[in-house]
């Protein structure tokens, strides 16, 4: 592996999944991940890219420590304050948007001012609404606000920017870029959108179909956000070749 170490003192994310399978309702085991080894330097930004249903969400849940039922080893970075944007918003329907965000805050942040964050996400006029009264796009933004608000030192995002119009999505991408650069939070990001990944990530992990393993790992040249057309084009070409290749 040719890692490019970025931040110094903090620990990297180290995830080794030898095997992970679910037992489905009729009893048959479904193998989802096999022989996956993923290392992400502290403070760097990794993107997972893979076909639908290959096991990306499963990997994130394992990385978050939510699913301990797997064979392998997990080493999480930072003090363990986690920000997670799930694939669905997962808001508490009986709490308003603001309550949903504040509930997730650790004690020392409980009184924090959310105005800026909420303005950036365009949630200003919806803070007092219940999730059932939001459009899906707004609900997603509330979920993103929640994950950002906790000031995580480990951030997991599962396709956070789908269901948003291009303008909002672009703004949020910039915001995510700024946030991760500023706070040096280790981030693992799932997307189907290659351009997005190229814009945001330090490192791309291309996954195979189920059972998922890493078929290609790619370090992108800094700086994030300002990749040249050539870099993007070469990655695109590589990804296309990968998709065409029989597994």
């Amino acid at each position: 592996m040719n890692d490019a170490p970025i931040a110094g003192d903090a620990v990297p994310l180290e995830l080794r999944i030898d095997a992970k399978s679910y037992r489905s309702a009729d009893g048959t085991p479904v193998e989802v991940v096999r022989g996956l080894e993923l290392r992400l330097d502290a403070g760097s930004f990794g993107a997972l890219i893979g076909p639908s249903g290959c096991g990306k969400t499963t990997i994130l849940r394992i990385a978050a420590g939510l699913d301990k039922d797997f064979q392998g080893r997990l080493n999480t970075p930072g003090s363990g304050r986690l920000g997670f944007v799930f694939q669905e918003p997962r808001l508490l329907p009986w709490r308003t948007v603001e309550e949903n965000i504040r509930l997730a805050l650790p004690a020392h942040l409980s009184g924090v001012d959310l105005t800026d964050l909420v303005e950036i996400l365009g949630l200003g006029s919806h803070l007092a609404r219940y999730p059932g009264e939001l459009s899906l796009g707004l609900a997603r933004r509330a979920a993103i606000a929640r994950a950002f608000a906790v000031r995580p030192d480990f951030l997991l995002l599962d396709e956070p920017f789908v269901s948003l119009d291009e303008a909002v999505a672009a703004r949020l991408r910039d915001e995510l870029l700024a946030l991760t650069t500023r706070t040096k939070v280790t981030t693992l990001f799932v997307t189907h959108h290659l351009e997005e990944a190229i814009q945001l990530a330090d490192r791309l992990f291309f996954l195979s179909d189920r059972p998922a393993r890493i078929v290609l790992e790619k370090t992108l040249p800094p700086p994030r956000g300002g990749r040249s057309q050539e870099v993007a084009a070469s990655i695109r070409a590589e990804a296309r070749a990968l998709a065409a290749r029989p597994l």
Partner: protein
Amino acid sequence: MWPRIFSLAALIAVWALAAALAQSRLLPGPFVIGAEILAEIRSGELPFQMACTLGRVIVSFAIAMLLGTAAGYVMGRSKAVDRFADPWLVVLINMPALVIIIFAYIWVGLNETAAILAVAVNKLPNVTAVMREGARALDPELDEMAEAFQLAWFARMRHVVMPQLAPYLAASSRSGLSIVWKIVLVVELIGRPNGVGFVLGSAFSLFDMARILSYAISFIVLMLVIESLLVQPLERRANRWRRRPA
């Protein structure tokens, strides 16, 4: 508020009509009962007996709800506990009230503690059975969310678990309060020197339907008032987030 009053008026009208048609000592009409209730209130008898009963209802209801909810929650959440505790629950839930009451009175004594214990033990397994279903139906996705964001135990209970259990709590406390009150009546009838159940026992042996009904209805009126002024506004508040059906 108006539909409630209208609906109650209709109920009373039906009753008055039935009483008028029956023309029997065994089905006194609303006016007879109203007069009886007033007389009993003036004599101080009804408020005293009602207070005795109400005290027992409140204490044993509180005990049954607290313990029952806790037990139901744990059983609904943990398969292991459930597997072990379920047979005990089945035994307790199906133990006839009479048996529990007799045992309480014999082994604890003919006193208040025994009475309250008997009622609480009678009601508890029902609360447990309902809350267990509620706990089983909890959404695992919200659990994951709470774990990811490291919500403290108390916050998790209050904001994630309780709102999901709310309809089960509402159901079991509404139907539970009525069960507790009914068992308190039996407990009083068998071995307490005061309370509505004690009065009903005497009235029953004299077949004094007017007295029986006036006490029963006084309690029901109390419940109606509590429902209308306390429970339903609270419930409306708790359910504000629900999308109104179009």
